[in-house]
């Protein structure tokens, strides 16, 4: 519904900068989040994502730039006056209060009457699927339940934007998988804008409408999960989102939209450039996803592919549907990570066996290598 009318975005940052002494944690970040969407900021630890979130919440003041919520600048507002709420990394449920008091805390501060508070707390507990836990203490609940209480405590205040600081980090794997789906469901139910920060790409990819990949204080790319995965704009995004085989080398030959790359150990491969201006002799990095590589028992099957390697099976990493094989490339001795298709054809793959692998040039992405050695 909100897609048609071009509303004011719920959250907008304009050239936000934050320095701690000489260190610039966040560099000139501008983005806007439309109403009702699930926006994730994905990045390795130390990339500045927490700093950015804390600036939105009001715990840090930007050194430069502006933060707007529903079109209104909030940089001069303290955190207790901002229409945003935050789910903390370790949830920060108040241990000195029971669940009812935890959720009522914000409403009481607003001076709501006791009867209104009671009704609202009951409603929000119903919505997160935990009716009747009012009198319990936080430590009597399971990890997933605490999570939902932490969200309920914020949502009962009906914030314009809900900030989530890696709240799934402390949960075990099974529960984390479950909560991913749960969170997405809660978000669409409340129809509130969620800003979610994480270093876990699967959390970001599964839940988000839009993901921003952050590295060293800047946004490398903002886009849908699909865009980031299939169409990374920078070498960092290609390497960080999803799994990739990576090569560094020099451009030997430039064709219309592909280049021939030679690595320092003499391996050559063809990769596409997708419009990036790459010249002969330039240092580049190329990335190939494990699932884009074709496995074949006979060389003939992949004869149509531009990049072909006759390799030896190294380790088979069995992981159910996500099983992989590491194929040793005889030219440079490096191992190429290849996904095993679940057709049964490769079920008996064994170490030491000779195997043929190949991929088309358009499955390999090439980026100018800006970092040099990296």
């Amino acid at each position: 519904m909100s897609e048609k009318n071009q509303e004011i975005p719920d959250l907008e940052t304009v050239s936000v900068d934050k320095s701690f002494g000489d260190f610039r944690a966040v560099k000139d970040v501008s983005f806007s989040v439309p109403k009702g969407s699930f926006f994730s900021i994905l990045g390795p630890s130390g990339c500045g994502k927490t700093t950015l979130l804390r600036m939105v919440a009001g715990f840090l003041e930007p050194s430069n730039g502006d933060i707007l919520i529903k079109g209104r600048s909030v940089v001069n507002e303290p955190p207790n006056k901002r229409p945003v709420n935050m789910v903390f990394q370790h949830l920060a449920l108040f241990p000195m209060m029971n669940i009812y008091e935890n959720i009522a805390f914000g409403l009481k501060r607003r001076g709501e009457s006791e009867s209104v508070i009671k009704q609202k707390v009951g409603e929000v507990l119903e919505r997160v699927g935990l009716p009747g836990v009012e009198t319990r203490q936080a430590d009597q609940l399971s990890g997933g339940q605490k999570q939902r209480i932490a969200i309920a405590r914020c949502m009962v205040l009906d914030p314009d934007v809900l900030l989530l600081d890696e709240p799934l980090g402390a949960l075990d794997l099974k529960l984390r998988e479950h909560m991913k789906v749960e969170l997405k469901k809660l978000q669409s139910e409340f129809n509130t804008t969620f800003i979610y920060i994480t270093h876990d790409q699967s959390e970001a990819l599964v839940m988000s409408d839009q993901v921003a990949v952050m590295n060293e204080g800047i946004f490398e790319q903002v886009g849908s999960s699909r865009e980031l995965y299939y169409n990374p704009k920078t070498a960092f995004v290609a390497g960080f989102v999803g799994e990739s085989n990576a090569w560094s080398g020099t451009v030997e030959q430039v064709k219309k939209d592909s280049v021939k790359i030679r690595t320092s150990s003499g391996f050559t491969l063809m990769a596409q450039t997708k419009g990036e201006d790459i010249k002969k002799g330039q240092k580049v990095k190329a990335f190939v996803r494990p699932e884009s590589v074709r496995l074949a028992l006979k060389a003939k099957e992949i004869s149509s592919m531009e990049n072909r390697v006759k390799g030896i099976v190294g380790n088979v990493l069995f992981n159910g549907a996500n099983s992989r094989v590491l194929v040793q490339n005889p030219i440079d001795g490096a191992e190429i990570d290849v996904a095993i298709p679940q057709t049964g054809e490769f079920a008996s793959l064994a170490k030491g066996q000779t195997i043929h692998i190949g991929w088309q040039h358009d499955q390999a992405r090439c980026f100018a290598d800006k970092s040099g050695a990296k």
Partner: protein
Amino acid sequence: MIGPRTKLGLILVMSPLLLWLTTLIIIPHLDMLYVSLREKVGVRQYEFGFGNYMTFFTEPLYWNTFARTAYMSIMATILTLLIGFPVSYYIAKIAKGRLKMALFLLCLVPFWVSELVRTFGWMILLRETGVISNFLQWSGIVNQPVEMLYNDAAIMVGLVYTSMLFMVVPLVTTLDSLDDSLIEAGYDLGASGFAILKNIVIPHAVPGIVTGSIVVFMLSLGNYLTPILLGGKSSLWFTGMIYSQFITRFNWEQGAAFGFLLLGLSSLIVFVGLKLSGQTLAKTMG
């Protein structure tokens, strides 16, 4: 379940503690109790009875002195808490790294000097010919020496000063264990600084407040040096009464009874205090 070897180990481990408890605490107290229950009827003639205890209740000077001592100690405890809490909060939550260590050490440093010397320090400041009096005269605020010693305010200053560390240490420990994100969550949910103090910080710090208050109250009540030196002859401190019974009047029976009354009444005050604040000793200590 416990084998003979573990039993022997347990006995060996416990024996110094038990020895210390019996020889230094239990035996003297039993002897005191015995002495306090002897009534003097003639020269070297004693009878069993509660006369020594009755004297306390029939003689207004004694119980008035006790009431005054208890009241002053409670005031000293409250004052120490009011001053110690912001100090502890600053050390635990606001100061970082080396500043935190330095501030904590600063609270400890006065205790490297004996209590007597510390009290004399206050006397040098407060007496008629002391530093403060001289400064006031020099700056022209007063035109004659001012005596600031030998009154209740001087006693109070001394008591708060002596007790501060015993309030700050438990408070810093409990406040240190308060997760910063709870305070941030409070702000995030719209609370003012005062609401956070009232609903989050103080409820979390209750064990530290209770522990600190009990220690400070007991130390003040049982303090002898500070009230006598800073309060002078008019200090009327209960420990002073006990001292004079034992030393000045050689009335050990009466002194022992006062000692037990101090123990019993102070325990009663602590118990009432815990009940009034809805705390239990187990909850604070555990």
